[in-house]
């Protein structure tokens, strides 16, 4: 029995609420009535992401993409599309009146473009042949046999690629500094010390496509005249390390790394250096110190690593994602790359989309996409019907973007202009249950832990900011604290030695900017509207609603809830640790937060 068509009905929770289930049933019923049950299979799928146009029905292999389908449409879909093989025009997704129904032409699908992640999830990362089959090492071919170092720089400059570590410095310019300097020894370094909370783009790239980074570093070696390179990667990434090692061995065996690459007189080799997971070692000067075997502490710039880097020699240092773009830029040309993105931010950006979002995951989007498209189209919105509150971008260096900024294009310059920054690409979505004081406190706590202590503004500033936030979260803050934090934040921005200290106040300052009312509520009314600040929260049980099911008592980690079966329970406030387990476990809404 051969199935001719597959009808996919979106069964994500948004569409479930939008009658996905009814559509599924009517389609089954109609297939039966029209006698085509055996020719097709109707499948309930997971969420397609595109929830605002849901429910969605797709018919394969025709690739018909129907949006906003109602149960009554089932008859027409079956009779037209399945029986007669014609698409139902009025239901097809159309953009600005165009009759584009192929997914690759639909803008919603074009919201993601895969350049960096071109091979991730497709090829076996432990097989060099599969990488080569997907046009791997073509960029290196061109760099070795066709282009001069100047021409490589030209392609990079044309591409408009900017550093993906977060600061956005033009990569071509950076390489040209090193290329121009005369030196007996130069180095190429890869910064794979990904440390932002909630960010894992570099790990995924190295685990899914290690050869792209190796190829790019070899191209860099050819361009600037370096014969040695190092990949500095955190020891917490064992699988990425293992796959990198396998990839390097394979490249050496094939003559794509090591002496006389592809039979030319160019030699280049790499080694892996493991980082111990200090956040500051992601700062380039601290990273280089760490590779040299010193303690990872930043030094003032200039001189920049491009002129005086590893062991005092000129060094090209880029982040994983920056490198992963380069093989394609060289093989397809800078102009090809420059067609993606915005005028000043070219190409794509990989984000790790996490937090209160339906479709968390790794996304790669063209620069200039709006936050709204990321959160609601690709991410599918906030689960549980909660209200969107903010997005935290750029990790401990970034800031929060509220609803007002949902239509801000995501690129280097516009994020800086609204008080956040691109950062390395962590994107944490928060809903009404997240307390902004708590969020700011979390990032400050991280910075206090991770500050290397070399300079006073950062060492003392992070600690003092944290203490003030802590006070506010306990309901003991006063109104002068706001100005104090702003002044201190400004001082840290100006006086800290490296990016860690200069950007550590960003989360606090942006929270003060965007959610001042929420901070003031903590100060004046001793109230935390999200119920996250433990000292301001009290859990109690509503006797009229509690049916005595004992679930909360069994969930409570400190056994402070008592009560017999089928009798209303009571929380002993003196022993409660405010973990909220009872609130989460109660199915009757009997646990109150105040």
């Amino acid at each position, binding site marked *: 029995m*051969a*199935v001719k068509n*597959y009808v*996919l009905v979106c069964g994500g929770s948004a569409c479930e609420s939008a009658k996905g289930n009814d559509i599924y049933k009517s389609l089954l019923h109609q297939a039966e009535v029209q006698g085509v049950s055996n020719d097709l*299979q109707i*499948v*309930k*799928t*997971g*969420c*397609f992401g595109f929830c605002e146009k849901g429910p969605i029905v797709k018919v*394969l*292999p025709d690739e018909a993409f129907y949006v906003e389908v109602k149960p009554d449409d089932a008859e027409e879909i079956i009779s037209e599309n399945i029986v007669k093989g014609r698409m139902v025009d009025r239901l097809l997704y159309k953009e600005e009146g165009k009759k584009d129904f192929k997914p690759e032409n639909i803008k919603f*699908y*074009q919201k*993601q*473009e*895969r*350049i960096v*992640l*071109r091979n*991730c*999830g*497709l090829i*076996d*990362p*432990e097989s060099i*042949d*599969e990488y*080569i*089959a*997907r*046009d*791997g090492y*073509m960029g290196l*071919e061109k760099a*070795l*046999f066709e282009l001069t170092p100047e021409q490589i720089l030209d392609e990079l400059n044309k591409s408009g690629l900017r550093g993906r570590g977060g600061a956005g410095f033009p990569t071509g310019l950076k390489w040209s500094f090193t290329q121009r300097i005369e030196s007996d020894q130069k180095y190429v370094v890869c910064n794979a010390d990904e440390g932002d909370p909630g960010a*894992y783009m570099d*790990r*995924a*790239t190295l*685990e*899914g*496509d290690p050869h792209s980074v190796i190829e790019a570093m070899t191209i860099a070696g050819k361009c600037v005249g370096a014969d040695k390179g190092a990949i500095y990667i955190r020891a917490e990434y064992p*699988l*990425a390390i293992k796959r990198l090692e396998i990839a390097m061995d*394979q490249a050496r*065996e*094939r*003559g794509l790394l090591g002496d*006389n690459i*592809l*039979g030319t007189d160019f030699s280049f080799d790499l080694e892996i250096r493991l980082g111990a997971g200090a956040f500051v070692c992601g700062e380039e000067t601290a990273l280089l110190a760490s590779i040299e075997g010193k303690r990872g502490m930043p030094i003032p710039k200039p001189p920049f690593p491009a002129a005086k880097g590893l062991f005092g020699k000129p060094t090209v240092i880029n982040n994983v994602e920056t490198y992963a773009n380069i093989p*394609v830029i060289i093989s397809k040309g800078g102009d090809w790359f420059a067609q993606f993105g915005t005028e000043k931010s070219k190409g794509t950006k990989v984000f790790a989309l996490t937090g209160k979002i339906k*479709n*968390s*995951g*790794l*996304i790669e989007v063209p620069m200039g996409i709006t936050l709204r498209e990321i959160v609601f189209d690709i991410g599918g919105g906030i689960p549980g019907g909660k209200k969107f509150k903010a997005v935290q971008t750029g990790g401990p260096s970034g800031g929060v973007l509220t609803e007002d900024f949902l239509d801000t294009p995501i690129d280097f310059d516009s994020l800086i202009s609204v008080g956040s920054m691109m950062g390395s690409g962590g994107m944490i979505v928060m809903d009404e249950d997240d307390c902004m004081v708590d969020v700011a406190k979390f990032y400050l706590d991280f910075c206090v832990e991770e500050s290397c202590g070399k300079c006073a503004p950062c060492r003392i500033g992070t600690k003092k900011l944290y203490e003030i936030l802590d006070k506010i979260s306990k309901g003991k803050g006063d109104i002068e604290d706001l100005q104090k934090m702003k002044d201190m934040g400004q001082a840290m921005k100006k006086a800290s030695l490296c990016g860690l200290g200069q950007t550590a106040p960003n989360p606090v300052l942006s929270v003060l900017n965007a959610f001042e009312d929420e901070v003031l509520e903590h100060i004046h009314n001793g109230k935390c509207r999200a119920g996250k600040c433990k000292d301001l929260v009290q859990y109690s049980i509503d006797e009229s609603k509690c049916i005595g099911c004992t679930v909360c008592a069994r969930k409570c980690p400190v056994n402070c809830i008592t009560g017999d079966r089928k009798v209303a329970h009571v929380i002993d406030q003196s022993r409660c640790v405010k973990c909220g387990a009872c609130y989460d476990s109660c199915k009757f809404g009997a646990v109150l937060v105040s």
Partner: protein
Amino acid sequence: MSKMTLEELRKLREAKKQEAAQRDTEGKDTLVIVGMGTCGIAAGAKDVVDALLDELKKVGNENVIIRQAGCMGLCHVEPTVEVRSPGIPNTIYGNVDAEVARKIVRQHIVDGRLVNKHVYDKPAADIIEQ
């Protein structure tokens, strides 16, 4: 494997491309790609691979290639499995556990019917044209 010259690299690339194209046109083999990044493995991808291998042995299907790959980006539904079977559109399955993996073998690879509730969409249309 020995060190390659430019010519050999180009030859190898062509050969590998042809191999893949041949597989597609002859429609003999089914390719199953399992997302095996740290995230996938943490979600249980290793059990999935074991179940796939075991079930394939049971149904006696020799024409299936199982391949590991990195993270596809669908972290919310890991472990993910992509199945490329002749005559059926390429399908991505999410939230796959050992039981679903066995279903994929019996239902999708053997009977040519998709497995309900586990089909997901690719995160992005590919732009690097092959």
